[in-house]
């Protein structure tokens, strides 16, 4: 497979669409400028033609990028050459490839193609290389080729890995790197038709409910509230003449109704989008990895090696937790899904809290989900209630000052914030069961992190001056995830509990005090 290959020609369309999407705002701006500037200095023709020029350019550029993009497998490397004016050559050695995943967009599905993303260790976000559209057979061939080559020099590869990383950090030879077997040496090749035992599926009802209560949909409601509040603040009724007032008032009512209709539709669209996204949500377990797949129009498949999972997080959003539902996330080292800002993989977007332990403990026998929570001491209640109030004290003060006299209503936020703080106080806590640490905290959304002693990278305990006076302290446990880490934190634990967690994590056992 050493000859240079091009992607499927449908890539031209995909490239063009992508560029048009990026150019949408300039197109709109110039279009409106064009209609308003009738006799401007450039003349209207230029501005009306500009969008056309931009679109023609994107088509040309989409075509050119397709033409110039080639890939091949040569000398144990995936070699990609691309670029219109600036030629870019990217050679990715196989041993650095962490995972290969495929997904299908609508266009890819129509033509029976897949999009292949290739990730390497130490990548910082973006996929290292993306083959936008290749046939399924071709994808299979690439995977096979990589697999074969990898198996051939498996031992070399392990050494090469260590060398690689040393090179990356640029450290001298006596600075060693510990490469954990499950992090670098086990690349993952996801088979297209591969299936495992189904452990979790979402019913239509659940998908509907998750969509209705999702952050996106709720965000629209918040935006609606903001939109409605605009009317009172910005329209100076009194200064307008009575005739004009009537006229404007009519306009306002129409705008108001229009606004509500738009918001309603936006909400419905958000729900539909979310439902399409989560449709057919299925989690399967194959021998050593999980396959999460979802989506109706665009199918996403995510493969998570069980060994790479660093922790499990249960999130309870305010609305969903009222109905006794929560979401379960896996925190994985070198996660390769950053879609929609998901830093972590969602395994169960919507699940009855009682059912979590059944599913999670089946997948991960080392974890215990239903463990009792050691609460926060009562003397920390006041601190929990004051904290959110303090966070917003300055914005509220500014708001009150600027929006007199209605701004005083903002003071009503304080009791609400104090109540949120109280809920956080009730929610927070910790537990240690064997080698498992659980940390719970909440601001708006409740977050329960489960992790194992040998997955925690470091533990911090700290106290500030106020905490010291009340014999309280905060604990942080950092685990590995993607780029950087994820920190589990619980604030205002009892001093004694803090010591217990610290001693549990310490490899050197002993008695004493923290003396912070």
């Amino acid at each position: 497979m050493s000859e240079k290959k091009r992607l499927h020609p449908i890539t031209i369309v995909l490239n063009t669409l992508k560029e048009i999407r990026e150019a949408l705002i300039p197109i709109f701006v110039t279009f409106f400028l064009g209609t308003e500037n009738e006799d401007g200095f450039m003349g209207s023709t230029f501005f009306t033609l500009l969008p056309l020029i931009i679109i023609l350019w994107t088509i040309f550029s989409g075509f050119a990028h397709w033409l110039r993009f080639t890939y091949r497998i040569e000398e144990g490397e995936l070699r990609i050459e691309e670029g219109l004016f600036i030629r870019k050559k990217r050679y990715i050695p196989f041993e650095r490839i962490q995972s290969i995943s495929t997904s299908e967009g609508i266009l890819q599905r129509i033509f029976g193609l897949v999009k292949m993303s290739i990730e390497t260790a130490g990548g910082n976000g973006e996929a290292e290389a993306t083959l936008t559209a290749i046939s399924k057979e071709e994808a299979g061939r690439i995977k096979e080729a990589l697999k074969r080559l990898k198996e051939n020099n498996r031992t070399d590869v392990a050494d090469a890995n260590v060398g690689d990383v040393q090179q990356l950090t640029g450290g001298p030879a006596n600075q060693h790197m510990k490469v954990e077997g499950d992090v670098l040496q086990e690349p993952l090749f996801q088979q297209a038709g591969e299936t495992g035992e189904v452990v979790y599926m979402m019913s239509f009802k659940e998908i509907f409910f998750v969509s209705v209560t999702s952050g996106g949909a709720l965000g629209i409601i918040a935006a609606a509230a903001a939109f409605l509040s605009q009317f009172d603040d910005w329209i100076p009724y009194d200064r307008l003449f009575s005739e004009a007032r009537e006229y404007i008032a009519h306009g306002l009512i129409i705008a108001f109704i229009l606004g509500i209709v738009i918001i309603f539709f936006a909400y419905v669209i958000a729900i539909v989008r979310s439902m399409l996204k989560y449709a057919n949500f299925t989690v399967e377990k194959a021998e050593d990895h999980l396959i999460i797949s979802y989506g109706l129009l665009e199918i996403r498949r995510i493969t998570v090696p069980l060994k790479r999972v660093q922790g499990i997080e249960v999130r309870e959003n305010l609305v969903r937790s009222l109905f006794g539902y929560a979401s379960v996330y896996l925190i994985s080292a070198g996660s390769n899904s950053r879609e929609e800002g998901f830093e972590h993989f969602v395994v169960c977007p919507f699940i009855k809290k009682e059912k979590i332990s059944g599913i999670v403990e089946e997948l991960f026998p080392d974890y215990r989900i239903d463990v009792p929570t050691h609460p926060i001491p009562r003397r920390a209640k006041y601190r929990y209630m004051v904290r959110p109030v303090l966070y917003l004290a300055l914005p509220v003060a500014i708001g009150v000052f600027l929006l007199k006299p209605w701004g005083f209503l903002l003071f009503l936020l304080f009791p609400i914030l104090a109540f949120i703080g109280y809920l956080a106080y009730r929610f927070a806590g910790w537990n240690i069961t064997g080698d498992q640490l659980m940390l719970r905290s909440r601001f708006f959304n409740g977050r329960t992190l489960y992790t194992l002693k040998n997955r925690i990278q470091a533990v911090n305990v700290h106290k500030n001056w106020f905490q010291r006076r009340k014999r309280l302290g905060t604990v942080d446990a950092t685990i590995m995830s993607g780029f950087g880490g994820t920190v589990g934190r619980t604030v205002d634990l009892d001093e004694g509990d803090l010591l217990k967690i610290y001693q549990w994590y310490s490899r050197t056992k002993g008695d004493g005090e923290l003396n912070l």
Partner: protein
Amino acid sequence: MLNEPKNRIAEKALVVWKIHGVIQTAVFFIIAIIVTVLIFLYDWPKWIIFVMALLLLIDGYFSIFFAPKLRWKRWRYEVREQEIELQHGLFVVTRTLVPMIRVQHVDTEQGPILKKYHLATISISTAATVHEIPALDEEEAEHLRRTISRLARVADEDV
């Protein structure tokens, strides 16, 4: 073990931090001078000068005298066979445990001021975190780096 970590950082760290404090104060001083000139040029309210002078005084005392001393007093570290323990902080005192098995690599660093005083900073990286011990004696830092490297390499999973 739970009594404070055994080792303190080099006493010369105090000097280095004081120099940092002086530099910081000097920068603020220059900014204050510029603002003062502007105040006279454009006839802005004069009380700003007094406020600035006061702030400068407080900051100078804090960053040259108060903070270095307290920080030095708080900084402690201990490297054991299985783990590294750190303690530091001015107002928020933090104690950190890093197991040897999690250590990925150790670096020493030396800026121009540290070099002049034969000091070096050591930074210990895990897969997700970086921990620094500032201002150790050069030899001590080098020794520590080797020790941690060696211990980290032999550390076995104990769980």
